[in-house]
């Protein structure tokens, strides 16, 4: 329900309305800075209150599903970066996992640990970015600068790993291309040791901030039924009373070996979502500590494999390609023609920072997917604005868009 307390009654000195029930149509976006990308909202207003909202998306539509049908599987990997570009490794991972399930591959343990390290760093990056931009939308410039500073350190670590800061393409079908660099663990440990204090700083600035509470508490409340019906996932669903985390419930990689909690709230408002994001950052840090231990154990046990061994689908290691004729021939075929997964279909859901990121792949045995459907969480988190915004006031629009954490690379695909 809309917030009613502490609100000024609008008073127009020099504007006269012809009719008492005059409805104003406000066009919000697609170039509005707090629309988080290319969101256009048609808002029907009664004075300052929204009576009808109509989100209009598609300004960033690149036809990724169409592109996927015309690309070999490995070729599509860098394209997935451009979906949720705030946490691009999680998109790479979802696609890699879907193809691996399709061809029935088991990834080496060391690669799994590296993937988990990357995924959780991406989650932290995404959540920090969310906090920064949402706080900026509300007007908290300091938090924006603080959170971006921390995100920068994580991007440096990722940059050291794969050379890219935003579009990583750091995961391959069948494993990871590289081992982590020498400074990775040290840098990450330094970062993680400081993170609790950083999160506490943000909370000190926001948790008891009167403006923040006014803009967040009891604004944008999503009931459990509404969240389920609209296909909400991730923090949007968890803040509405359903403790559903795919990492916990349908564990992939080594998430069944690490200990972490699933924070959730039954309030469903903006503030609940904010709290869920903050707690998730702490849980991510917990997972990262455990992953670092796992990595060190891998190193001690001498597990050096980074790519799965499946000559029909995955190229051999570089050393084999350079020394063995048959590996070179197979590599040539896999690069020029592409791998040919078995005939069948698969739907694989992973927990991206935004929610359930699903890849549906229908393979007809050719080197190109016959149909690839990208299930991006933000698509429905934008759709829910249709039902969520009516009853709220114009300033609430900004804070609600902020806490839904929508990224338009993902909505429009």
């Amino acid at each position: 329900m809309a917030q009613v307390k502490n609100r000024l009654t609008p008073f127009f000195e020099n504007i006269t309305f012809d009719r008492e029930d005059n409805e104003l149509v406000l066009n919000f976006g697609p170039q509005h800075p707090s629309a988080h990308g290319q969101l256009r909202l048609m808002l029907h207003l009664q004075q300052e209150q929204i009576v009808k909202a109509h989100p209009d998306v598609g300004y960033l539509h690149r036809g990724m599903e169409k592109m996927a049908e015309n690309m070999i599987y490995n070729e599509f990997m860098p394209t997935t970066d451009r979906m949720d570009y705030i946490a691009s490794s999680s998109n790479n991972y979802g696609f890699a996992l879907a193809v691996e399930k399709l061809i029935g591959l088991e990834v080496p343990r060391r690669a799994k640990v590296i993937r988990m390290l990357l995924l959780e760093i991406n989650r932290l990056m995404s959540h920090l970015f969310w906090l920064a931009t949402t706080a900026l939308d509300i007007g908290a410039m300091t938090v924006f600068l603080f959170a971006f500073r921390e995100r920068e350190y994580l991007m440096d670590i990722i940059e050291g790993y794969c050379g890219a800061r935003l579009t990583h393409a750091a995961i391959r079908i069948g494993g990871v291309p590289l081992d982590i660099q020498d400074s990775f663990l040290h840098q990450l440990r330094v970062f993680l040791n400081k993170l609790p204090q950083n999160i506490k700083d943000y909370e000190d600035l926001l948790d008891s901030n009167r403006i923040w509470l006014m803009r967040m508490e009891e604004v944008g409340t999503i009931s459990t039924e509404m969240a389920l019906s609209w296909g909400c996932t991730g923090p949007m669903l968890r803040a509405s009373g359903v403790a559903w985390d795919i990492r916990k419930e349908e564990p992939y990689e080594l998430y069944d070996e690490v200990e972490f909690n699933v924070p959730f709230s039954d309030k469903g408002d903006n503030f609940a979502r904010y709290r869920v994001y903050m707690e998730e950052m702490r849980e991510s840090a917990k997972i990262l500590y455990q992953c670092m231990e796992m990595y060190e154990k891998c190193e001690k046990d001498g597990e050096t494999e980074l790519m799965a061994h499946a000559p029909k689908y995955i190229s051999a290691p570089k050393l084999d390609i350079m020394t063995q004729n048959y590996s070179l021939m197979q590599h040539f075929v896999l690069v020029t023609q592409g791998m040919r997964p078995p005939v069948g279909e698969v739907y694989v859901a992973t927990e991206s920072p935004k929610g359930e990121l699903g890849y549906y792949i229908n393979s007809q045995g050719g080197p190109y997917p016959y149909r690839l459907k990208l299930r991006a969480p933000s698509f429905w988190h934008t759709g829910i604005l249709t039902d969520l915004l009516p009853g709220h006031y114009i300033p609430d629009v900004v804070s609600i868009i902020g806490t839904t954490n929508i990224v338009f690379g993902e909505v429009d695909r």
Partner: protein
Amino acid sequence: MRAYKPKNDVQAKPYYTDRFYVAPQVPKFDVETDEVFASDLEAIKAKFEVKDAYIQVEQMVVYINAHDIYGVLELMRDELQYTQLSEMSAIDWLAKENSFEIFYQMLSMTKRKRIRVKYFIENGQAVDSVEKLFRSADWSEREMFDMFGIEANGHPFMKRILMPYDWQGFPLLKTYPLEGDEFAAWYEVDKIYGKEARDVIGPELRDPARVDRYDSERFARLGFEVPKGTEITDDMQRTVQEYQEKDGVFLIKKLDKESSVVIDDPQR
């Protein structure tokens, strides 16, 4: 003679396939192997006709009749605890059997199971909207209409969602080329200047990203720089690069490697 290219599927094709290559299958398992799926399937079978059902990659796939979809999903939501419709869309089989395959990806959070409900429709046939059951189908069905032209009966707002409202053609059909069709190529020109401007503008100027290497008015030639407006011939001389510091850059010349410190920790 030119090689025959099928008109009904213009997507990328492998340039070489072994004549004797038989594609392997992703294994399908009997539904009886999983208790939860078996009981779910029994409940669906009791009320509706099930054409085929199997388990593939840990998820059950159920084929039903097109007109049963609303009833099946209602049963699954209300009695079988499949409370979320994760995803729904279509697969284009027009080239093969003139039909679309529609799939609905269902999730049960209490049972931790996923079921894919599927059915076939003829080309031109509409599907029944399930928007009344799951609000998420509102946008999914619009997207399906946008991409394939499949309409949903009973949908409150059956308009395009990702493409512009005045777009022609359905991009995810196999007959639609990747680079777009004639309409797509001239979309902006038609809209801004009108159709008659096509001849005036021409295909060369239509593309704003077009680079003309012989045009020295608007484009620079890196490495072969010439004054603006010069007529360009192919035998141009490479531009000689002259540096200000004849004996190397001042600062780097003075760098003493022995006494310098390399900072590798950005958070020092």
